[in-house]
């Protein structure tokens, strides 16, 4: 592995560029490099691992019990990549991916405050998942953060929230994190479970499959451990963070009664959804996945998107978890090599077969989890008008509801013109799903009919100075000389 620390070290062209060094990106890069392709693996973080294996090579958390045995599996993926000739660029942000006029792709990247355009024959987006927005009254107060953010602090710096900590929401990761934080010494005063009780009805049909799945033992263990050790409240139907300068308490309604719990930190989490900003901005088709209840890029069995040459591997193309992400990266890399003519279709199929079988196994029981932990309507479309939905532009749920019904606004792209929601630096990462949900509710249609934001590059901000200093590509120089 060739680690690139400066933008000038990047080549003009790679056979394949992979965005994101989580499990999908790491295994895609290793697999492509093993097949002899020139590979660029670009990742925003200072070290490989993505979110799930964040800081796997650098974490100060030495006690292996704290993060759990699954976390340490990430090390093998990095070791495999290290043995290849792939170029790995940490701290490198890919802010644009677009088709060029030669049938390949142009990537806009920034590293160390300098921008560059490079080209690649094939692209694999392995940008992973993000936490589903969880808008409740007071969620913008200091002291309130996502559970995932707390996990980043734990993995990368060994930090736990100080003081009385409340964890609220639903999903398997909620139990995992509660367990990790408790093991690391956090003072968890309450775990507030928002899983709607009636979800069990929908999920039961998928139970038999789940009973055979690898999730079962692991999941049960996590949940039972957390429940046994931590103060749980289930059936939570309303939440509000309270405080003036910072969160000082949380108001929680469960079983028809409301109580106030004093706290210094509130961690929110209601599952993860694909991070679609880069694929959306690149123009890849997407659809609304009714089971996972989120927008998902549309991909085929090889994880190829609607744009030939762009594949999306890992949780970025539908939530499947770390193990499945690594397998999907492997399969996407084989297809990319085939598209580049380096291996035949027959070779691709033969090499992929065992991985595909393993993938099917690893996804077994997923549907049960998706249905069981589907967030409640009240936490997807906040009923309290004053709840801020777009944090960048400070747009509330009430404003969106009112604009949708009074002005007849039927989609999020039109909503931007009236309220500016989704037009701040995060480009809708924190409001998009909620805005769609609120519009759908106002017009009594499904989120699928409402559509999603059309996103624009740069997918992450670059400075005007960086852009102004963008060196011309070799192709552009040649065009001028000619």
């Amino acid at each position, binding site marked *: 592995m060739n680690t690139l620390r400066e933008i000038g070290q990047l080549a003009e062209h790679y056979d394949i560029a992979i965005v994101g060094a989580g499990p999908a990106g790491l295994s895609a890069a290793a697999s492509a490099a093993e097949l002899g392709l020139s590979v660029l693996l670009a990742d925003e973080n200072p070290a490989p691992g993505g979110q799930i294996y964040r800081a796997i090579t650098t974490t100060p958390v030495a006690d292996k019990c704290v993060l759990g045995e699954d976390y340490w599996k990430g090390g093998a993926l990095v070791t495999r990549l290290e043995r290849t000739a792939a170029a790995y660029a940490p701290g490198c942000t890919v802010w644009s991916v677009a088709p060029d006029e030669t049938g390949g792709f142009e990537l806009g990247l920034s590293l160390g405050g300098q921008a560059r355009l490079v080209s690649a024959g094939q692209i694999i987006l392995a940008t992973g998942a993000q936490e589903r927005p969880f808008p409740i009254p007071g969620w913008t107060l200091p002291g309130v953060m996502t559970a995932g953010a707390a996990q980043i602090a734990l993995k990368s710096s060994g930090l736990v929230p100080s003081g009385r900590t409340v964890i609220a929401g639903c999903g398997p990761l909620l139990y995992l994190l509660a367990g990790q934080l408790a093991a690391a010494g956090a003072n968890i005063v309450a775990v507030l479970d928002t899983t709607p009780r009636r979800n069990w009805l929908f999920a039961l049909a998928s139970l038999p499959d789940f009973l055979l799945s690898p999730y079962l033992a692991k999941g049960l263990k996590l949940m039972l451990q957390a429940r046994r050790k931590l103060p749980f409240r289930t059936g939570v139907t309303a939440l509000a963070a309270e405080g003036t300068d910072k969160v000082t308490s949380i108001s929680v309604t469960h079983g028809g009664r409301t109580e106030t719990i004093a706290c210094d930190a509130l961690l929110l989490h209601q599952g993860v959804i694909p991070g679609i900003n880069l694929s959306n901005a690149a123009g890849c088709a997407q659809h609304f996945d009714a089971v996972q209840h989120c927008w998902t890029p549309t991909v085929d069995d090889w994880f190829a998107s609607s744009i030939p040459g762009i594949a999306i591997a890992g949780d970025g193309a539908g939530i499947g978890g770390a193990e499945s992400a690594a397998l999907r990266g492997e399969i996407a890399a084989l297809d990319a090599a085939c598209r580049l003519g380096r291996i035949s279709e027959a070779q691709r199929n033969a090499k992929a077969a065992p991985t595909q079988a393993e993938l099917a196994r690893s996804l077994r029981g997923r549907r049960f989890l998706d249905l069981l932990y589907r967030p409640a309507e009240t936490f997807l479309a906040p009923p309290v008008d004053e709840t801020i939905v777009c944090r960048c532009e400070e747009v509330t749920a009430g404003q969106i509801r009112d604009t949708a019904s009074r002005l007849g606004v039927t989609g999020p792209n039109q909503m931007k013109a009236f309220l500016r929601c989704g037009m701040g630096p995060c480009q809708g990462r924190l409001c998009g799903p909620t805005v769609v949900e609120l519009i759908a509710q106002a017009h009594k249609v499904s989120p699928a009919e409402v559509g999603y934001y059309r996103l624009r590059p740069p997918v992450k901000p670059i400075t005007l*100075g960086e852009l102004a200093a963008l060196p011309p590509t070799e192709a552009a120089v040649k065009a001028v000389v000619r």
Partner: protein
Amino acid sequence: MSASDRSADVIVIGGGIHGCSTALHCAMRGLSVILIEKDHAGRHASGVNAGGVRQLARHVAEIPLSNTSMALWHRITDLVDDDCGFTCDGQVLVAEDDEDLGNCRARVDDLTLRGFHHEELIDAAELRRLVPAVSDSCPGGVVSRRDGAAIPLRATQAFKRKAVALGADIREGVRVTRVARDGANWRVETDHGAFLSPRIVNAAGAWADRIAADLAEPVPLEVIAPMLMITARMPAFIKPVVILRKRKLSFKQFENGTVLIGGGYLGRAIRAENRTVLDWGKLATNAKTVWDLFPIMRAAPILRAWAGIEARMPDDLPVFGRSAKHEGVYHQFGFSAHGFQLGPGAGAVMAEIIATGSSNVPIDGLGIARFAPSAQP
């Protein structure tokens, strides 16, 4: 669906600001209108342009139309019940050197002789007063003080809503497939059935050449994708919109602090897919111009860049007015990346021509006849 749902006094093809404005003004004159739009109102050029409401530096042939429009912009709330985000802080053309300033002087003198007084030559001191952040090397420029900017999609949707309120029938998500003569009427075929009307207005923007071709009036329309980018919020430092003559630049800070940077650099339009692809090399040149002119902007984060799909004519002038061949056919397209300001006025003039047969606002030089084969040298 009854026949009355399918016919009207006027059918407008295209729901950009021009189509919506014409529909509104026709409705105000008591005509029944059906507007047919393949996506939603303001989906393309009208919704994603820079929002400049500019009389400054226009070709003389479109100044009368622009003047008519500016009067409407200044009472836009009365017209459409929404302020459309319109602000009036003037637009300034900055001269980058003395030669540039000389050209500005010649332009303003020429306009004065023609009886137009909206452009005003300014010296370095007045330029500094209007645009304190501009680089010290700029010797002056031209200001058009009644100019400003509005929010494009909001404005287009406001015209649509007001037209609907006055009885216009706006059909969004309906694609015109063919236009043909049907007795005394024009038959507009769509993917949702056919519509009939004695009068049709071709306001189909970047798709208008297809309608014109159906009518045997082919036009050399180029589909372009002018690019724009916007920054994060910056401290307030500039009120008017700034444009340049020698280098391409259009520069505007909104009240919320964000700065819009454009100037007409073109990306790639993929018309059939409603898509555009940006050209970062050109955007870098665009950014370099701002870097030179406004040092305060050098560290500003660029949040988004995009391009709209627009129609450009070879002479950069719109096609506006009656068909050269057919009774009951009117053209209103090809605004060549500067049609947003013209929308309100062009709709009013078009409706007047449709309803009364003529207008006092001169539109000489804008007719489709200039592209007829016989008109070619």
